[in-house]
């Protein structure tokens, strides 16, 4: 097929775009983990704060990505970063908030209080308790959130091509603009493949990081977190 030959011929360009695409996603998700997990842990102790934070993040999710870009560009242009990678990363960062924060806080809140009691009774400090007991048990669910965020963001990063962020979306844009089905399909197919691959890879990582004997419990919690 023509598309296949197109891909093979333009390996260099495609690799470049792929690199740009993945970089945006990874920076955004990485930052989101750094801020989201601590926030998730913090609000799991405070039910009122929890409701507000989750509600706010949920509202964020409701805003269509195109709309968010449309709102951010004028705002960010005030500081000179209207288009390009910066608004893209910021948008992706915002979209990662809900899955990561919600899954973190659900994971921590649903931990058996008996565990916390036992840990405190054994003389663990708050930090030790968090790092040695609670976080390891919360990891499967947090990973599920990271996975959700990543897959969503691979999709949104494609749209970010429209605001000059680069990435594989550029192929689709050019494909539509130049009525060139090869570029269009190449872009669409490669992005899809990357998204599916990332989904599976992160799922495998999730299972790897799940402490043995926890898989059944994690499955039950996940059902709760995804509705």
């Amino acid at each position: 097929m023509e598309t296949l030959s197109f891909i093979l011929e333009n390996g260099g360009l495609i690799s470049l775009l792929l690199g740009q695409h993945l970089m945006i996603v990874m920076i955004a998700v990485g930052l989101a983990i750094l801020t989201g997990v601590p926030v998730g842990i913090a609000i799991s102790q405070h039910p009122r704060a929890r409701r507000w934070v989750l509600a706010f993040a949920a509202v964020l999710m409701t805003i269509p990505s195109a709309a968010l870009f449309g709102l951010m560009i004028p705002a960010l242009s005030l500081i000179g970063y209207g288009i390009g990678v910066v608004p893209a990363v910021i948008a992706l960062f915002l979209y990662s908030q809900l899955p990561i924060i919600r899954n973190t806080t659900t994971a921590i809140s649903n931990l058996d209080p008996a565990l916390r009691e036992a840990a405190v009774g054994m003389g663990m400090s708050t930090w030790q308790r968090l790092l040695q007991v609670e976080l390891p048990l919360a990891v499967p669910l947090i990973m599920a959130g990271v996975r959700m965020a990543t897959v969503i963001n691979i999709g949104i990063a494609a749209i970010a091509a429209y605001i000059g962020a680069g990435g594989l979306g550029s192929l689709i844009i050019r494909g539509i603009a130049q009525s060139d089905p090869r570029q269009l399909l190449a872009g669409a197919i490669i992005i899809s493949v990357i998204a599916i691959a990332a989904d599976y890879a992160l799922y495998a990582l999730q299972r790897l990081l799940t402490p043995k004997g926890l898989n059944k419990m994690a499955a039950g919690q996940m059902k709760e977190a995804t509705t």
Partner: protein
Amino acid sequence: MADLISRFWGGLQYYWSDISYLTGQHLQIVAVSGALALIIALPLGVWMSRPANQRYAMATMQVLNVGQAIPKLALLALAMSLLGVGGGAAIFGLWVATLLPVTVNTYEGLRAVPRHLIEAADAMGMTPREILWKVEIPNAMNVIFAGVRTALAINVGTAPLAFLVGGGGLGELIFTGIDLNDFGMMLAGAASTALLAIAVDMGCGLLQTVTVSRGLRLAGR
């Protein structure tokens, strides 16, 4: 900052007729693709939940999962290459995007109905169809509705992209605004789209409260 706000306000007023027209188009795409998705996804979910169909349920889930992971823009682009430019591609793409959450939640919701309720219903002399409509579906309503709400949110959220494949809608203001670097247009489109999405979600939540049995709400299920 003040300049921005005045530009936003100006844009809103300037493009008002466009906004109302495009909103209508936008809602039309959402409604059609959403309705079509529900027509297929709800029965599909019910079918998958029947004990006889367990094997097929797993396989179907896998396929739908893959469909869900595909980025929406790619989905619309693929639809366009199949169906050509226009509303058809947009509706088809959105239809695919909306299927999974509804099907998954219908399936999981029905499977989560406690077995002993179904046994009691069977023993009382309800036919399988009566059990489905009087016991299983009412008790799965909350989960099913959550799926519909998620699906609708995805649909409304992806709809702006319809413009890119020739389907019209509020995306026109956003993307044209970006191309022309016209903040007023951009903001007008973006704000309308965002508000529309939030309004639809809230409407769904309201509908859920009204429709689902009070008994379930009290039971916290």
